[in-house]
């Protein structure tokens, strides 16, 4: 923001830091322990620019219809569980895709896999080593076996199969308890010391183009929100002419005051942030100031519009216009709760095509601005879905496949792409790795995936347990997909 943050709020923060260092606050409020550990993080100040881009697929993506077995025997098992190849006339309750319809891809070890036929963009990315899959990843407290689940001795995450609960667990750094108000993206932003942006000192390193979310809720940082068209400026209450300025100052005065009711103060802070950052950020993103990009994104594709705005913001962030060093972005796409009409027109296939096309365009935009090797994008989703049909779709399940996109390691990027990481399961309805209707028991924790991404962004390995408290329950806290 042009002005520094208001004097009393700054003084308050300073006091808080001092009391934390002196230990007084800890005695009063033991809950601060976590903050103090976060503040004591050893992570050095960042240089260069790196960004994580979270793409949340809301509703629970049927990802075993996105990355599909191609080896004949494995595909046979898949088809048997999915009720055969879908055919609107002769097999309308089938959920499977014929082997001949799959887009074949071969991983670095030479194994063949099938992509949903709508995912041509993903094939391009995978073949170029710029996309990796992480198979059968899900929410876990610790590794579990089917026997332990049947015997009810397993420690399981709370409220499995529930949308909002499982979304929260994906966004948070641990899966044991239902509560806790922080996301691992926000905690990464807490720990990574961005030197202040000179032009936009008030801009958070967490930026959302898709609304408030737990993923970016940190202990010290909360995300800055804009929409796909950029920041929203206030009409008649911002600008250069005198009456607008008079009105702007009055509104700022009301927003900047402290109110005893917490909600009023919080609302004031959100408004203050919107007013102080919006104008400068709009200038930074202005095409007249070089804030646009040339890459054409697909039309009528909300995710693409979000990713386009993220690409423009990354471009400005890497330049003097913002000059951030570490950032965490959030985008999302809805519609994946395919209980109904999964295989029909406008069903799952259309979602996957939109996702695939949006990701490919985003990759081109990142290359255009020279950020391909400095940006890692990844998907998260509530859960996978049942392999068998509920008549016209699928129900909530557990483990699934997620994607990681970034610059290929062969070209100087971090991603060990063109690989299927984790253990892709045999897709049986009630096999060793599945419960009843083909609910897959995850073999990789979403926290391992998160820790790998956090470490790449710059979080020190020793600090990972602060963000991911249960990570010690898994033999390897981080995975190999990022070098």
């Amino acid at each position, binding site marked *: 923001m042009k002005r520094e943050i208001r004097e009393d709020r700054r003084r308050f923060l300073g006091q808080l830091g001092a009391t934390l260092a002196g230990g007084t606050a800890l005695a009063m409020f033991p*809950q601060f322990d976590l903050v103090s550990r976060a503040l004591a993080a050893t992570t050095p100040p960042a240089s260069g620019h790196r960004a994580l881009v979270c793409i949340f697929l809301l509703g629970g993506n049927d990802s075993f219809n996105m990355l599909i077995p191609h080896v004949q025997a494995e595909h046979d098992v898949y088809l048997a569980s999915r*009720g*055969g190849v879908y055919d609107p006339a*002769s097999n309308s309750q089938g959920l499977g895709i014929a082997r001949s319809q799959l887009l074949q891809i071969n991983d670095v070890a030479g194994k063949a896999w099938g992509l949903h036929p709508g995912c041509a963009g993903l094939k391009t990315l995978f073949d170029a080593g710029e996309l990796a899959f992480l198979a059968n990843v899900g929410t876990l407290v610790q590794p579990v076996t089917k026997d332990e689940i049947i015997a009810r001795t397993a420690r399981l995450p709370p409220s499995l199969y529930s949308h909002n609960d499982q979304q929260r667990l994906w966004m948070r750094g641990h899966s044991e308890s239902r509560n806790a108000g922080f996301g691992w993206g926000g905690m990464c932003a807490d720990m990574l010391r961005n030197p202040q942006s000179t032009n936009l000192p008030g801009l958070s390193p967490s930026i959302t183009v898709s*609304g408030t979310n737990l993923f970016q809720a940190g202990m010290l940082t909360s995300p800055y929100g804009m929409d796909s068209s950029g920041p929203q400026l206030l009409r008649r209450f911002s600008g250069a002419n005198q009456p607008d300025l008079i009105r702007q100052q009055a509104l700022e005065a009301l927003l900047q005051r402290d109110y005893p*009711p917490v*909600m*009023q103060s919080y609302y004031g802070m959100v408004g203050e942030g919107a007013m102080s950052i919006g104008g400068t950020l709009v200038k930074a993103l202005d095409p007249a100031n070089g804030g646009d990009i040339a890459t054409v994104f697909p039309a009528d594709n909300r995710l693409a519009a979000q990713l386009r705005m993220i690409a423009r913001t990354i471009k400005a962030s890497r330049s003097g216009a913002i000059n951030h060093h570490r950032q965490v972005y959030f985008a999302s796409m809805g519609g994946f709760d395919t*209980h109904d009409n999964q295989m029909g027109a406008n069903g799952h296939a259309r979602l996957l095509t939109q996702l695939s096309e949006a990701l490919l365009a985003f990759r081109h935009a990142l290359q255009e601005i020279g950020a391909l090797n400095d940006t890692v994008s990844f998907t998260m989703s509530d859960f996978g879905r049942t392999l068998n049909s509920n008549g016209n779709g699928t129900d909530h399940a557990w483990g699934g496949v997620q994607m990681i996109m970034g610059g290929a390691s062969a070209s100087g990027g971090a991603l060990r792409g063109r690989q299927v990481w984790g253990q892709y399961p045999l897709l049986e309805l009630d096999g060793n790795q599945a419960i009843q209707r083909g609910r897959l028991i995850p073999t990789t924790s979403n926290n391992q995936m998160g820790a790998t991404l956090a470490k790449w962004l710059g979080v020190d390995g020793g600090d990972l347990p602060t963000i991911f408290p249960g990570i010690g329950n898994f033999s390897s806290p981080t995975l190999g997909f990022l070098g």
Partner: protein
Amino acid sequence: MTHGIGWMRVFFLGFLLCLLASCGGGGGGSTASSGAGGGGTTPTPTPAPFNDIPQTDAEAARFLTQATFGPTSSEIARLRQIGYTRWLDEQMDPARTPATLLLPHIHQMTVNDTLDYRERRNYWLWKTVGASDQLRMRMGFALSEIFVVSDRDYNNKNFERITHYQDMLDQGAFGSYRSLLEQVTLHPAMGTYLSHLANQKAVTYKNAQGLQVSVVPDENYAREVMQLFSIGLVERNPDFSPVLDANGATKATYDQSVIAAMARVFTGWTWAGNTDANYWSWAGHDNDYRAMECHPKFHDDQPKLIFRGITIAGTSDCKVTLQQTLDALATHPNVAPFISRQLIQRFVTSNPSPAYIGRVSKAWTDSNGDLGKVLRAILLDVEARVPPAATDASFGKMREPLLQLTALWRAFDAKYLPATNGTYMFRFSNSWDFTTTLMQDSLRSPSVFNFFEPDYRLPAAGGIQGIYAPEMQLYNEASFGSIFNQQLDAGWNNFATTAPTANTPAPVMDINPLLTLANNNDHAGMVAKLDVLLFYGTLSPDSRRVMVDMLDKLKAANRPADERVRSLVQLAVSSPEFVVQR
């Protein structure tokens, strides 16, 4: 902490205050929260320490802020005349206050390609401004955010279905929860939204490809009717505190086996008028909003073990199965606290004290889930009626953005005439879909989880839980701007000195009361006028000073009186003391 002060968004301050004030307990003075906190303690009735007749305009306005779509001068006067009890009696008596219904209006329209979902939304929205059944419409709105369906997937067709659903909620607003739950369950708007319409018992067959296919009942409605519409995820005491086991852990209300059993309950229902042979087909326009009908052939006739060890007897009669199951849901001890707490949040405060929830739960249980009696208990509770202490950090709620808009219109006696063809097609900026600007709209949620969740909490520091603030989930820097500009589009340009005589792009508000004061340069008087209508008399001296100061400066800059009025109103409706009601 030497770097990055600027971007560290400072919720510490509020959070610390919250700690010091022991928030979470809610306001309403010490009487309301005494005896709180004990899981499952039976609340004792507390005599109301407030007058049934509001003593001031501000007191009346505060009640009307909670119970209606916004106070008006005439409603304030009437309430001061008759008092809360009689006002509630009148509102709940259909003979004296008939329900505003939307479907008859839609049926007067020619349903063609030019008519779309906006006709329902606009007609409803306009009626929230002018109709007399304020409490019923407000309760219907609250219920539409619990029993969520959405018209997102059918903008231009079948919107009579969702119109009928909305009328059903309004008509059931003061009736029995149990019967409303049944109507919701069997309404095709819900049947299509949560996909239990044409749901069928498990079948196994060999398909044309020679593969064994096993199809099982759809779990969608089975899950959400428990998680969202009735009992929630964990067992609750009457005061909403979780029931804890010996280890201090919460107890789940159901597991996956119950979901599977419940999925089998909701089998055999499809469009009214269908035969077994066309069980899956849309039955056509005439049956589009009739309650779904039972087809025993497709109903799972085996016994079903559901929650609390209850077994629903095996029968092929889906109606019998449904009655037994809905009875079990409606009499589950969780329903009273689970739904009561959400209704308190919609009307009064985001963080009701356990004692407050307990008292409303008791009204629920005593009346067998009579929603009218529950609503009375909510609005006439001491915690709702006695204003919170100024230092109370947590009492109150954020006004939903749609309610911010209606409060503006009602405060300034807005008038609107439909177009000559009878349509209510608003034409002000962004009025085509308020989800893109106000972040919410009527029955247009992105998912069954509504636009915001009852358990959304404010961010807070240091591992502490922030207070609940469901509506605040809608707010970030982007939506702050879009809500502000939407209010401006509805407000700024639409003040006039005379009422409209023909259709206008937006409702037209009466500028005269404020304009007269502005012409006399009575800036303090202007602010005082707003204080009652928009702030129920609680506008702080600091805020008054800022507002008067702005008006003085605009006057000094030679800005005309009407611009000063518009500036003041826009400043007021975007101020923290308006947006968060107490």
